[in-house]
């Protein structure tokens, strides 16, 4: 038996899986922010009551958490110190010195995680090639460490210039710190991620140090609590890059679990795309505040090398702290059920990115929200049933929602009430579709071939509109769309990603030496996985990042399996040119190319998961709850939609649109011309009509 636990901002979700029978049990309770392990204990006790003996039978607990990202956003991390090269303590504060909003003279910048008085310098200096310019001066190092001790730091980051080419001085500092400040956790940039560009590397290392004590503390407490409950299995933590790792590694590199939470949905998507053989799947998880999505190609989600956290202006690129670690290529935009609609100062409709969140929430929740939201529009379009929201536990106020749209949107824009309501729904779909098209195109995918997989409370309500705008042929909604993502915990591979910078031209590269570099990375990956108790054959996937000599950005290339030294340089070059041409339209075979970064993913084979089959045996007709009027975008009118109870639909049921499929946490809309089919696992597959209207007019 295994259990997946996802600690989110509001709720902690549990899925218990019996691998032999494929049966799952779920549980949901409020997150306990002060001590998240408390909610976990509560959930496990509840599941133990449902399935007696399950805790002692558990082999694995797989855990995703927003603990780390919240600590950064709320600035609740450790009192951290930074040791760096003489002359460079302000690198962290200077950042890249670009104003992210060119015409805004008042744009705020994020405050560094380590204030100036705790950023101290050591006499030492490496050249760009890693050779020593100024030898490491131990006396200056001890003096700096003494100052950190006086300032009572709880965690230390070390980032020296050019150390990605030579770790000797950082390692020397690590030894001194162990001597002088025993018990204080240390993060050195060479171990966190040895990549060129000092600001990005320092910021990443500092962030790691900042959250290290609280992450270790939390994971230790959690291990104890689980033990006390009778758990004898292993604890794994979800990584931002889509693998899982041991609690020990997560405690050492907490900067790698920042996106731990949202990654599970992507991993679930990866699994579904393989299981159902969908070569291109677009996972789309829409909640109250944001929509997160990801393209999965041939069963694999992309991984990118850098992202930002704690943006001063939430959706403004460049206004956050830069983190340079591998992270699943998630696109997050400010589009959720709570996104607020209004007339912009330009006299156009604006929806989001600001959201009314869960509190006060949409107007129709009746909790004091006054701005009309996407959920209010969904209600007014007939997509949501005011009497069956969250399974009927919450009544929605239709009249108040109507007044909100009249007053804040239809009136000020001078459009009809229904144009306004439909406009809100349609614009948020368009916002998502425009971002999705760019995201898909940039990764070489084709929006007209993707299968849209919808998750989250609002995802299934908007999936039809989104799929139409993309021109996608079909969409799929797993059962319990709110919990469906948690299945990702069971299918994530045990994996760890490693990167090292080393600049060398293709033409003169000593491929045998590069093979040696790859092997070092692989050995390190193997050690990390074995430390986490991995058994069996470890798989290594290699890639390189290369560029024209003199270029500033790299293009990522997969490396064929086998001995790097045996590769034909012309094959590598052809691979580069083909990739470059696909991305930028032209390539330049006469210009020289160089390697910059070498990347390895070490992973164990994915443990197979038997999805539970549904056992519903009734007739299709028995699942029909009735009929209601809901808006049809193509006809621009209310038309009757059949309403279905998803829990009662038997396998192989086939239902033509328009229809509404309800379950407790969400509602699936299928428009006119669509066709829904239920498979043996209870997934709803919806095919779209071929002649998709084009976005603006439907």
């Amino acid at each position, binding site marked *: 038996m295994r259990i997946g636990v996802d600690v989110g901002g509001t709720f902690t979700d549990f899925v218990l899986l019996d691998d032999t029978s494929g049966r799952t049990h779920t549980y949901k309770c409020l997150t306990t922010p002060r001590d998240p392990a408390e909610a976990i204990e509560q959930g496990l006790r509840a599941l133990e009551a449902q399935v007696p003996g399950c805790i002692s039978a558990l082999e694995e607990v797989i855990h995703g958490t927003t603990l780390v990202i919240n600590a950064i956003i709320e600035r609740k991390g450790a009192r951290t110190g930074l040791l760096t090269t*003489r*002359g*460079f303590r*302000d690198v962290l*504060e*200077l*950042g*890249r*010195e*670009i*104003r992210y909003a*060119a*015409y*805004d*003279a*008042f744009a*705020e*910048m994020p405050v560094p995680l380590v*204030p*100036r*008085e705790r950023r101290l310098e050591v006499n030492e200096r490496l*050249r*760009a090639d890693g050779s020593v310019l100024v030898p490491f001066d131990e006396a200056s190092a001890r003096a700096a460490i003494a100052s950190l001790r006086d300032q009572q730091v709880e965690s230390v980051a070390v980032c020296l*210039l*050019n150390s*990605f080419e030579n770790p000797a001085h950082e390692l020397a500092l690590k030894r001194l710190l162990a001597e002088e400040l025993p018990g204080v956790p240390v993060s050195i940039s060479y171990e966190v991620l040895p990549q*060129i*560009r*000092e600001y990005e590397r320092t910021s990443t290392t500092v962030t790691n140090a900042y959250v290290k004590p609280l992450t270790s503390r939390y994971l230790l407490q959690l291990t104890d609590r689980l033990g006390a409950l009778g758990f004898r299995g292993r604890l794994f933590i979800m990584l931002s890059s889509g693998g899982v790792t041991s609690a020990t590694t997560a405690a050492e590199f907490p900067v790698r679990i920042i996106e731990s939470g949202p990654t599970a949905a992507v991993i679930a998507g990866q699994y579904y795309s393989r299981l159902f053989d969908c070569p291109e799947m677009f996972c789309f998880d829409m909640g109250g505040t944001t929509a997160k999505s990801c393209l999965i190609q041939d069963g694999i989600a992309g991984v990118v090398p850098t992202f930002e956290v704690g943006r001063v202006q939430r959706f403004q*690129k460049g206004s956050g702290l830069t983190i340079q670690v591998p992270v699943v290529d998630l696109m997050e935009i400010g589009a959720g059920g709570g996104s607020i609609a209004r*007339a*912009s*100062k*330009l*006299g*156009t*409709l*604006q929806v989001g990115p600001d959201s009314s969140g869960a509190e006060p929430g949409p107007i129709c929740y009746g909790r004091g929200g006054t701005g009309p939201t996407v959920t209010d529009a969904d209600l007014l379009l007939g997509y949501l049933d005011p009497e069956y929201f969250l399974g009927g536990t919450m009544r929605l106020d239709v009249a108040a929602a109507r007044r909100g749209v009249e007053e804040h949107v239809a009136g000020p*824009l001078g*459009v009809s009430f229904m*144009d306004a309501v439909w406009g809100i729904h*349609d*614009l948020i779909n*368009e*916002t998502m579709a*425009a971002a999705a098209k*760019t995201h898909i195109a*940039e990764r070489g995918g084709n929006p007209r071939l993707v299968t849209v997989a919808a998750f989250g409370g609002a995802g299934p309500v908007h999936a039809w509109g989104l799929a139409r705008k993309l021109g996608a042929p079909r969409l799929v909604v797993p059962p319990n769309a709110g919990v469906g993502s948690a299945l990702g915990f069971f299918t994530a591979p045990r994996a760890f990603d490693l990167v090292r910078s080393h600049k060398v031209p293709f033409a003169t590269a000593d491929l045998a030496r590069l093979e040696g570099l790859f092997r070092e990375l692989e050995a390190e990956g193997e050690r990390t996985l074995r430390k986490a108790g991995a058994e069996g054959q470890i798989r290594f996937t290699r890639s390189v990042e290369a560029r*024209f000599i*003199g*270029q*500033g950005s790299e293009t990522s290339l997969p490396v064929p399996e086998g001995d790097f030294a045996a590769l034909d340089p012309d094959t590598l070059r052809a691979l580069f040119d083909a990739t470059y041409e696909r*991305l*930028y*339209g*032209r390539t330049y075979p006469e*210009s020289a190319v160089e390697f910059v970064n070498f990347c390895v993913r070490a992973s164990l084979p994915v443990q197979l998961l038997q999805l539970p089959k549904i056992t519903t045996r009734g007739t299709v007709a028995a699942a029909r709850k009735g009929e209601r009027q809901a808006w049809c975008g193509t006809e621009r009118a209310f038309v009757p939609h059949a309403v279905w109870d998803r829990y009662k639909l038997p396998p192989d049921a086939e239902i033509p649109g328009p229809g509404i499929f309800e379950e407790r946490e969400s509602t699936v809309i299928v428009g006119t011309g669509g066709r829904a089919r239920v498979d043996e696992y209870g997934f709803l597959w919806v095919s779209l009509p071929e002649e998709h209207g*084009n*976005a*603006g007019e439907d």
Partner: protein
Amino acid sequence: MPAKIDPITLEILWRRLISIVDESDAAVARTAFSSLLRDAHDYTCMFTDSRGRELAQGTLATPGQSGAMALGIRQLVQALPPDSLHDGDVFITNDPWALAGHLNDVCVLSPIFHRGRTVAFTACILHHSDIGGRVASDNREVFEEGLFIPLVRLYEAGRLNEGVLAMIRANVRTPDQVNGDIRSQIAANHVCARQIVRMLDEYGLSDLDALADEIIGRSEQSIRAAIARAPAGVYRADGVIEQVAGQPDVRICCAVTIDGSDITVDLSGSSPQVHWGGNVVYNFTYAYVHMAIKSIFDPEIPNNEGIAAPIRLIAPEGTVVNCRHPAAVAARMQIGHFITEVIYRALAPALPARVLAGSGGTPATMQMFYGRYRDGRPFHTVLIRGGGMGAGAASDGAGSFIFPANGANTPVEILESDAPLLIECRELLTGSGGAGRHRGALGRREVFRVPDDEHAPQSPVSLAIQSGRFRLPAEGLFGGQPGALAQFLVNGQPGNPYGITRLEPGDVVTMDAAGGGGYGDPRERDPESIARDRREGKVKS
């Protein structure tokens, strides 16, 4: 498409246009060769409708380039005979008077075809590190400053014009880098054209012109409404800008008239053009007038031709703010960047919460190092940086930035792997921010060393600088104090920031950027901020 576009569809299409230009902007960052582009983002992508009216520009556009392009591209496009254009044509020019005011800003311009007709133009200006010539601020004529490329076809219906490329390559020091950067401009235009055509197809549109009318019209209404809310009147300020030793300082006289929703900026009375590279062409002056007006009145709406409609600029020909050919213009930012500050100062009494005190990043500082490695290979690298931002009514100066222009620093680790130089420090200068109720941000120091060991380059290494604030600091507002001055030292002695400095192995160059001016009386500063400044070593104790 209906004649008048409804407000909902309009928003949908407008967002799409901005995401297209941002995608082509990202293509430059990923493909460019010189660190000035890939790391420092000194470039701007934009596109226009079929008549050359600017519709959208990259979110990270550089205000000097983007403001000048809005005027310049329209003039270029309207002068091209429509039936002379072919799908696959790519034009190139760096005419300072036509576009962004100096030869290094090279523009690549392409018509976008849809169903056999020109529906749009996409343009990308990159600040090329190297355009040949004598790299210094004290040239007398533009002829000394490098290669001048009038508007010519680099590609004709998709075929490369080899002669043009050979001409460019023969006139620059680092032909491969220049060629690589031109390629990245072509890649950006390619991405832009592909996405615009895709959008037109998807929405069944035949062109962008009706959409342009709506976008431009609504943007104009928005900024006019903001201007109309400001108190009408004539507001004046003068700016004094230091120049080459031994020459009188440059004066910019500015009268801003707010009359209903119209705003006129009259620079009559400003100094005549100068005999060095600080001269500003009309378009570049206009760009920083535009920056001032947009940042004061309507910073958040997307930029396009509509923003320009209420603005009228008077800049007499032959003055330093509207120089005549063949004036030297390479260092035009040393004067041009001050125009925004002078307008801020003029409008400060009327709109005290919408302006900043003087910034240490006005003007931007640019340092060009060039020479040869020991093995004879050439190197040529350009660094840009700002100084302490001025404080405002609501907060301290935000940090070390270029303002009103924009751009990022080059990482130390990148510079050292691109050039045979060492950086000994890059740090904030304690006490350099002007005191005030809100403190100006600190300037920063950067120290360069030319190695004299086995990594030494050939002698000499040339250094050319464009900068300012060596004698006249960034002033405070409403009782705030000025920020600290900038310094340029060679081996500890003041150097000449206007000419070329020849460095030998072992030489050390110190560049101190100026601090920002304070805002409001320093005695009104809150005790908590004072304590934090002391703790962090941001003020002298």
